[in-house]
């Protein structure tokens, strides 16, 4: 459990970091909180030749109120988000979700950008950002671009981020404070990655559609058409079990795993919709 040898860079500014990243394209990895990258390197599942530590880049830290959206810098730690009054007031769903991430020691270091870039399908933050209709801000030496979270998670631990890009921030449309939401997950132990989770975020001015996200199953979090169809009206009583099963079957080659997950997803969905009721 010793990493292969690597060169370590610690740039002080974003342009320096981007320059290093484009110079060593393919051979370099960004180091943010290190809570995933370091174990991967220790187990030699990741063997970067160069590690670019972005922890000194202050521009990447912090939460800003940008009118219709909140912009959260990539290097903002989970615990800073949890303690932020701005998040508590404007984005309680995000705080609730992050409360389920790991344990204090990990939340003290782990970053929102690291979690989004890693795109673990069982992680709370990517799924929540998808449910909130967030946009990812990616920057390279040549340009800055925004990617809708709907287009961002494109495979198992794979994203639309390009090798020479740094994820600099996530922009989340503000939600009216009175609007209900539901976050529910099932984990074996407190702080574990979810076995399955469901997030419901009803539409509002900044987000024209009702969103229902399922995570912890399959290669990425996904917007569930079956659950989104259940918003409003009769609610979940008329739950489309068959449609949900079809969605699950996309991800499970073997029926047994789907058979185990389906009742859990059904239970979580029922409970999530119940929470939306005032």
């Amino acid at each position: 459990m010793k990493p292969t040898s690597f060169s370590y860079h610690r740039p002080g500014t974003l342009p320096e970091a981007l320059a290093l990243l484009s110079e060593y394209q393919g051979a370099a990895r960004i180091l943010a909180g290190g809570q995933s990258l370091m174990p991967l390197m220790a187990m030699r599942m990741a063997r970067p030749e160069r590690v670019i530590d972005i922890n000194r880049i202050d521009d990447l830290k912090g939460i800003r109120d940008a009118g219709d959206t909140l912009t959260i810098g990539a290097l903002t730690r989970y615990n800073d988000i949890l303690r932020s009054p701005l998040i508590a007031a404007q984005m309680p769903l995000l705080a609730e979700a992050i409360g389920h991430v790991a344990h204090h020691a990990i939340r003290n270091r782990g970053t929102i950008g690291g979690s989004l870039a890693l795109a673990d399908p069982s992680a709370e933050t990517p799924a929540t950002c998808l449910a909130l209709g967030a946009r990812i801000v990616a920057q390279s030496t040549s340009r800055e671009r925004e990617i809708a979270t709907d287009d961002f998670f494109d495979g198992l631990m794979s994203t639309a981020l390009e090798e020479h890009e740094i994820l600099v921030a996530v922009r989340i449309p503000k939600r009216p404070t009175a609007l209900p939401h539901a976050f529910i997950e099932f984990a074996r132990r407190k702080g574990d990655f979810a076995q399955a989770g469901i997030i419901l975020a009803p539409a509002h001015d900044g987000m024209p559609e009702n969103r229902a996200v399922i995570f912890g199953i399959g290669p990425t979090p996904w917007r569930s058409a079956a659950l989104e169809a259940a918003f409003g009206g009769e609610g979940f009583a008329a739950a489309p079990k068959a449609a949900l099963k079809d969605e699950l079957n996309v991800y499970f080659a073997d029926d047994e795993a789907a058979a185990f997950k389906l009742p859990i997803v059904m239970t979580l969905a029922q409970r999530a919709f119940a929470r939306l009721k005032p």
Partner: protein
Amino acid sequence: MTEVVPAIGRSIPRPRAKRLISGRGRYTGDITARRTVHVAFLRSPYPHAIINSISADAARSLNGVVLVATGADIAQHCKPFAGIHRLFKGMKAPDQLPVAVGRACWQGEPVVAIAAETRAIAEDALDLIEIDWEPLEGLGTPEKAVAGVVVLHDKLGDNIGYDGVTASGDIDAAFAGAAVVVQDTFRFGRHTGVSLEPRSILAAYDPSDESLVVHESHQCPAQQQAVFADLMGLQEHRVRVVCPDVGGAFGLKQQLYGDELATCIIAKMTRRPASFIADRVESFASDNHAREHVVEARMAFDPDGRIRGLMIDDLFAVGAYSQYPRSSIGEASHVAALTGAPYDIAAYQARVRMVYQNKPPVGHYRAVGHPIACAVGESLLDQGARALGLDAIAMRRLNQVRDGSGPHTSHSGFVLNGLSVEATLDRVLEGFDVAAFRKEQAEARERGILLGLGIANFVELAGTGAPYYGESGAPVTAQESCLVRFEPSGQIRCHASATDQGQGTDTAIGQAVADAIGVFFDDVEVISGDSMACPSGGGAWASRGASAGVEAAVRAGRAMRDEILRLAGLILQRKPEQMTVAGRVIRDASTGAELVPLKDVATIGHYRQHLLPPGTQPEMSMLRSFVPQNQSFLTTNGVQLSVVSIDPGLGDVRLLRHRVAHDSGTVINPMLLNEQIRGGVVQGLGAALFEEIRYGEDAVLGTGTLMDYLVPLATEIPDIEVVHVANADPGTTIGAKGAGEAGTAGAAAAVLNAVNDALALIGASVNTLPITPERVLAAIDQVTREDQQAPGNYK
């Protein structure tokens, strides 16, 4: 000067704990030696494969690599070894070598050893080794192994290492005349100890006098000294094994490991100190595992709930080899010995089969065999109660071995002495209102939550005596010794053969010696874990520290006190029996008057012998030993009670309450005792709900890290209440009994019974541990297949 208060019975904190929590632990990995080489092993990626060839030239030429050794290279420096226990007639075990030669038999078996200037370089070199593998079919389940789909070791003829039957009474008549017979097949997952400190070793060989000094994270330094000397052909008195601070052991660090022997051999080959510290990933693949049983069991009852007979058939799947030197059979033999042991059962039959398969060896893990025996017996008893419509607690009372009935030969032929099954059950239920719980259970069900109450009685075979390993052929002793030194300062040093991996054994020994002599606990220092500095003895296993280890210490302490008083008598011209040692002074026994400082006696004994009467030879140290000579085990018992809630929509089981009543005999240190029991319970709760090393049919490992192998965390564990029945053991001076394994022995069974009590509300049940959400949902699904609603809707 404060008065001396007896140390026994007080919650004295462990002196070691202060050092450990201030970051000053001295673990094997903290010990440095100049010119150390660091060893890493290439481990088999296959469960079963022929090694056609190994090309290691590139690895050898990597800068910083000192040695690349194959199994054949290592084998030139040692004898093969086989984990046979001669008490078990007909037992078969294959020969082993430290590193595989020609064939790998489990995924994780060491195949090539690399010694380099750093561990990182050694790992780099692993990448450069090429092996031409020829994969073979792997045996990944007990059933596949017993069927002999592949015969793992040609010389054995089949995969069955042991097949034996224990029986008493007329089993056919017992079942034929039964009002009710319950029957089930229980499956127990494979576990491991997960010590915080992984296995670690630092070996230094000196060719000038052919001596070997080994620092090793281990429980049994004397055993390791004998094993290393024997297998490497060294003179035993030139081998020293030091076990410094050990960060958890749990039975996992009680045997010989091939990679550790190979590290000693590498020290000899390279003539440099060699260090090997297992990392967490290789620990899962190479530490001894435990459990993995499939038990078919039946219990027959009379209409009033009396147990008529019990039959079990335990298929116990070990690994590719039997662990050395103690063998792997212990767990199965304990299942046969202990199933149903808290009860009077007239007819019994237990068959145990130990089978080999392509997995790491199965070893001794806290409460060897006990959790299996307890779960099987206690679950059948509950099933009987349900079938007869009787109260399970009343049924236990009806069948329990009576307290105070003296030595009792169990249905499995073991002499169980001084049991207090009735008292512990009463004690665990004190303050627990069963009727109120049943009401709460009914109310919860209205809300869709299933609550369950489980109780599990257990009997423990602790403090193993001389016959068990005496007959085995292994260099394992049941004897403990203690050397007590009356130092020139008037203070005491003890050198104990019993060892301490965090249990607090050293503290208990210090308390016992302090009281035996009459001095302050703070004036006693205990040294343990060194095969050279301490007398030879067992170390730590089978909950023996507080019984055998403390007994040797008490005897040595009393002998030392007698000598101190003899010397004081000579100095003061008084009768020794009219004086006592009291803290730092000697007093008149009847008046309490202070006679002489203890230090003055020490000074005369060490420096001023000319002041003593002519012909007096002071003895400033005393060695005493203790062995339970004729009893196989020192028996004790306890009971656990568990309350769980099940969320039927998710299959999720939560632990709400856990209570233990245990007979630990005389309580030496209440705090340490309670924490031993709690720690044991937590490991048992892990077995009940979380921990499982998963393998495929082909024996490919599915749980590589702590992300997959779930250990219980503080957030999952309720407050564990511990109460005692102090029924002193008559066989020792102090009367303390084993307690280190009690928690693990009964916790899983209590949870299993609680879960089934809850599931019985909807007609479901489980019989496989750990009880995962998948298994609970599958059990629920079976009874509600017709119900198309989500399974959350139970009413």
